[in-house]
């Protein structure tokens, strides 16, 4: 069976080059990569909001882009929907008008009825007449989702729309998105830099690193022994620890050869062997002699700075510890007063809520 979509695109912007080559089916694909890897640029290429330098993009039986044959389908004819990071709800239109905006081939009355149906599907009946400024964060997300789905796209792109929301709301929206996908079978590409989104949402994970798509793996295989090494080798990003979950004083801990970490999130198979993932931007550097909140005092790891790399607005630190090298990321200028040169001793802190339990080679998925 040929895949539903095939992408092979090259794009250049200044000195940054994006090379993406992958295919996808009618599933939820998660595009995972650190900040600045080019995730948003890739989505804009797929939506037609930017022109690629060269390449091809086919969706279903349509060729949307073929630079060799000078084919470039403008965004309004692509039927590729997009939920923007900041949602981009139209402030001068009501919720109902927003959702009806992209409904095709219907007269205005029918379009309104279709919009109301979509609002029911995302549990927003009664909000038809409100304006976007009168909605909460979660409600806005649902409107944005309904609006793009009401236009019956053949591919739906989501650019980290849930990143601004907190845990429970985020989980419920992920569930909602999975349900809507199962009902509509519209293929989805979801961009995120949070590994738990990738695990909870996707069927397949695509990795994007420094402008290159380095491969994809089915979510089921993400954490099993064989794929895991490969995936992190491909990504070269993040801190993955192998060890054991233990319960002590009704709290969850993760024990590995570098010590103990407190874990706030529920862990499958606890107590027992498992893995945890800690994103580099969730590792904080502690100031010497400064009192910090309780949350940060729980998990502290000591080490020596091995390398300090500034990548534009981002600093990447490699810290050597007794149990291996840790990756730390923070916005440039954040720790300027500490002068984190190579060879400096540092103390790293990880909030218990940032330690993501991954289970042991099994699919971690919420229901």
């Amino acid at each position, binding site marked *: 069976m040929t895949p539903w979509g095939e992408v092979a695109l090259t794009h250049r912007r200044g000195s940054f080059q994006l090379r993406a080559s992958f295919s996808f089916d009618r599933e939820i694909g998660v595009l995972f990569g650190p900040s600045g890897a080019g995730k948003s640029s890739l989505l804009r290429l797929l939506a*037609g909001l930017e022109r690629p330098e060269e390449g091809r993009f086919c969706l279903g039986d349509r060729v949307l882009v073929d630079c060799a044959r000078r084919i470039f389908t403008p*965004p309004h004819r692509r039927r590729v929907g997009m939920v923007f990071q900041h949602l*981009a709800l*139209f402030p001068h239109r009501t919720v109902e008008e927003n959702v009806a905006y*992209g409904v095709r081939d219907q007269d205005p009355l029918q379009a309104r009825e279709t919009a109301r149906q979509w609002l029911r599907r995302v549990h927003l009946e009664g909000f038809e007449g409100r*304006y976007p400024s009168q909605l909460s964060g979660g409600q806005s997300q649902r409107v944005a989702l309904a609006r793009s789905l009401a236009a019956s796209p053949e591919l739906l792109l989501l650019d980290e729309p849930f990143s601004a929301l907190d845990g429970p709301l985020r989980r419920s929206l992920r569930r909602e998105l999975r349900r809507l996908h199962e009902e509509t079978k519209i293929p989805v590409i979801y961009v995120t830099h949070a590994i738990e989104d990738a695990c909870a949402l996707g069927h397949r994970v695509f990795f994007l690193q420094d402008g290159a798509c380095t491969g994809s793996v089915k979510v089921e295989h993400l954490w099993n022994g064989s794929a895991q090494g490969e995936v992190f080798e491909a990504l070269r990003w993040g801190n993955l620890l192998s060890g054991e979950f233990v319960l002590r004083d009704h709290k969850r801990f993760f024990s590995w050869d570098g010590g103990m970490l407190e874990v706030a999130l529920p862990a499958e198979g606890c107590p027992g062997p498992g893995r945890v993932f800690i994103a580099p931007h969730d590792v904080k550097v502690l100031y010497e002699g400064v009192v910090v909140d309780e949350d940060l005092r729980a998990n502290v790891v000591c080490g020596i700075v091995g390398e300090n790399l500034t990548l534009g607005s981002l600093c990447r630190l490699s810290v050597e510890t007794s149990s291996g090298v840790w990756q730390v990321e923070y916005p440039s200028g954040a720790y300027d007063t500490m002068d984190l040169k190579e060879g400096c001793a540092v103390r790293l802190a990880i909030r218990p809520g940032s330690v993501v339990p991954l289970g042991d080679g099994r699919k971690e998925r919420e229901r």
Partner: protein
Amino acid sequence: MDEALRLSLEVLAVDVPLMILLGVPLGWLLARKAFPGRKVLELFVLIPVVLPPSVLGLYLLLALGQLPGVRAWRLLFSFPALILGALIPALPLVVQGARAGFSSVSRDLEDAARTLGDSEWRVFFRITLPLARRSLGAGLALGTARALGEFGVSLMIAGNIPGVTQTLPLYIYSRAEALDFAAAHGAALLLAAVGVATLIFVRHLEEGRHDPVG
């Protein structure tokens, strides 16, 4: 005074559509597009704001006098000259308003409309224009008030011919010069009222900008 008022209104009837036709696209161009010569255009548009009207009028008079046809068709010291004289100092206000309005519209909103099936024209008329309309309206109101009150440039290129090029501001000047203060007062009161009304209208537009309705 009736004749001067009629003439002033005729000038507005021609100049307001012209200001929309020229000012809105110019404002959009300056807000949205990068092109060579953009900085020069930006400065050029603002020149009428900083030059004294008499200087502007003098240069226009000299420049127009060089153009073929202008003399033959008696375009100076006539209604067309009046149109131009009122348009030039008013246009920058419209351009600035349009530019501020278009700049304030997030590109994401336009992109969202594109992915929802809107062609470029539909994006403009359904998203960009409605969201920029307050700033646009304020610019247009200020421009209209400026055109109505035009004095210096008109005097230089259109003269002060009663019944032909004597608009309300010029009428006030002539009446005052003839020591007919009663007539001057009548016209001055009318213009002052229009000016204050414009200000109130513009304030209203600007304050409403933070409505949920946008």
